[in-house]
């Protein structure tokens, strides 16, 4: 993804980041905090142990309404949007005619509207794609005046529950209006770390006050994009532009779980989205390559871009994300390999600065997900 030209944009928390000693980097056209003085390792561990507050206001927030919006959106994605209950959200994918992924996003049914959160670097292209593909009766608003915070970690529900009590028992992958410090927010129970947590959409002008209120809680610390990346990698979650792109299908990416039954060959509304031939064929016959977890031998990280070879030295895949997993305590990676070599335990060779390094195909995630599945008294979902 090419970074947009011109002056970097700033989120509503820019001054709070500066004041907190953030080291910045440009990401999706924004000056974003990579880490704070404590560094990525401590921020990562803090999130797994307590609660991390992330500014993800660079992400695109879109509102889609009118003109049978759910049915219209289904024409652009292999996802069941029509039967998504009000208040529920779903991980979704925009696909192209060859079955490749244009973006991965969250779709939430707010009753009379659909709320979409898309990747920051894809925002402009997504809006153009949606506007071109949706009927004129659908209205797509880009919510430029909204900010987005993520509160992630085992203490997230305890913390948010103090300020907005109902959120503590809000089910995973649901969204609800909640008032935090007198500010009307849209709170979703989801995230990108593998931990329990929330994403909080709120007016940009109120973001700093809410962020400071959350940071006043003992368990909460600001966390930068560096730890966000190491957390999501340990959780086996894809980064668009690295692990997913327009040449990668959902089936290759191991995202078959996200392809709703209703849109599959045997479903109520099969096909009818860009790339259906490729995606349905790969669901039936298997894809030519698959995304896998990779555990490098030794301590040297294997980074995205490294080539993977088999015993005979034949190139069989590529690493798409890799680095150091702080909770794992060693190097971890993800990549794509030929389907025949995707079984856990397969040993391959990565080339790191021209030197061979053994890596083992392994199951994802590297760190067990810790999502909220409801308390026993409420009846846990399977």
């Amino acid at each position: 993804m090419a970074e947009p030209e011109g002056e970097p944009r700033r989120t509503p928390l820019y001054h709070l980041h500066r004041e907190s000693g953030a080291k910045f980097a440009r990401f999706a056209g924004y000056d974003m905090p990579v880490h704070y003085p404590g560094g990525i390792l401590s921020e990562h561990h803090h999130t797994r142990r307590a609660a991390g507050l992330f500014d993800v206001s660079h992400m695109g927030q879109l509102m889609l309404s009118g003109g049978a919006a759910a049915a219209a959106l289904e024409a652009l994605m292999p996802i069941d949007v029509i039967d998504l209950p009000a208040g529920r959200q779903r991980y979704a994918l925009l696909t192209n005619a060859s079955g490749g992924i244009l973006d991965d996003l969250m779709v939430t049914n707010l009753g009379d509207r659909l709320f979409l959160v898309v990747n920051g670097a894809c925002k402009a292209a997504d809006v153009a794609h949606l506007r071109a593909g949706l009927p004129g009766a659908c209205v797509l608003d880009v919510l430029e005046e909204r900010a987005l915070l993520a509160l992630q970690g085992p203490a997230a529900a305890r913390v948010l529950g103090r300020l907005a009590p109902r959120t503590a028992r809000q089910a995973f992958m649901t969204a609800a209006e909640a008032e935090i410090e007198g500010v009307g927010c849209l709170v979703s129970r989801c995230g990108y770390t593998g931990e329990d947590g929330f994403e909080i959409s709120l007016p940009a002008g109120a973001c700093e006050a809410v962020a400071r209120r959350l940071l006043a809680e003992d368990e909460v610390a600001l966390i930068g994009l560096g730890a966000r990346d190491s957390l999501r990698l340990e959780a086996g979650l894809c980064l668009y532009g690295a692990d997913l792109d327009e040449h990668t299908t959902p089936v290759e990416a191991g995202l078959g779980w996200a392809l709703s039954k209703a849109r599959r060959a045997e479903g109520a509304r099969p096909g009818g989205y860009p790339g259906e031939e490729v995606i349905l064929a790969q669901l039936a016959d298997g894809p030519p390559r698959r995304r896998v977890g990779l555990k490098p031998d030794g301590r040297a990280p294997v980074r995205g871009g490294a080539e993977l070879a088999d015993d005979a030295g034949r190139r069989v895949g590529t690493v798409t994300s890799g680095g150091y997993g702080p909770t794992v305590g060693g190097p971890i990676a993800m990549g794509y390999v030929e389907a025949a070599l995707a079984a856990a335990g397969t040993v391959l060779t990565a080339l790191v600065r021209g030197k061979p390094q053994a890596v083992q195909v392994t199951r994802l995630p590297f760190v067990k997900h810790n999502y909220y599945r409801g308390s026993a008294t409420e009846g846990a979902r399977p």
Partner: protein
Amino acid sequence: MSDLKFSEEHEWIRVDGDSGVVGITDYAQQQLGDIVFVELPEVGRQLAKGDEAAVVESVKAASEVYAIVGGEVTEVNGSLDDDPAQVNSDPMGGGWFFKIKIGDAGELDGLMDESAYEEYTASLE
């Protein structure tokens, strides 16, 4: 008596006679962040000044370390294999990288002393 010199690439060398101990500076480790792996040169390797001598991997990224002077690598700090974070906690001490037999002492002349290096890093802020 040893003599401490610094490069603009944020390496240091502590010269003692015709050999020296090499590492990266406190400024460098702060910029790199948490270091999780250091790839060191092989003992016996002949380095020319400016050759890629080592690689430092932080959580964020890999960064090359270039030879501050030319010469032969005589010893490496094997303790970094198990505890690379020494480069963060003690970059001028326990976090040293390798020892080198200096090929041409004249190459040391262009390096900075401690106060010049402090001025240099201050100018980067």
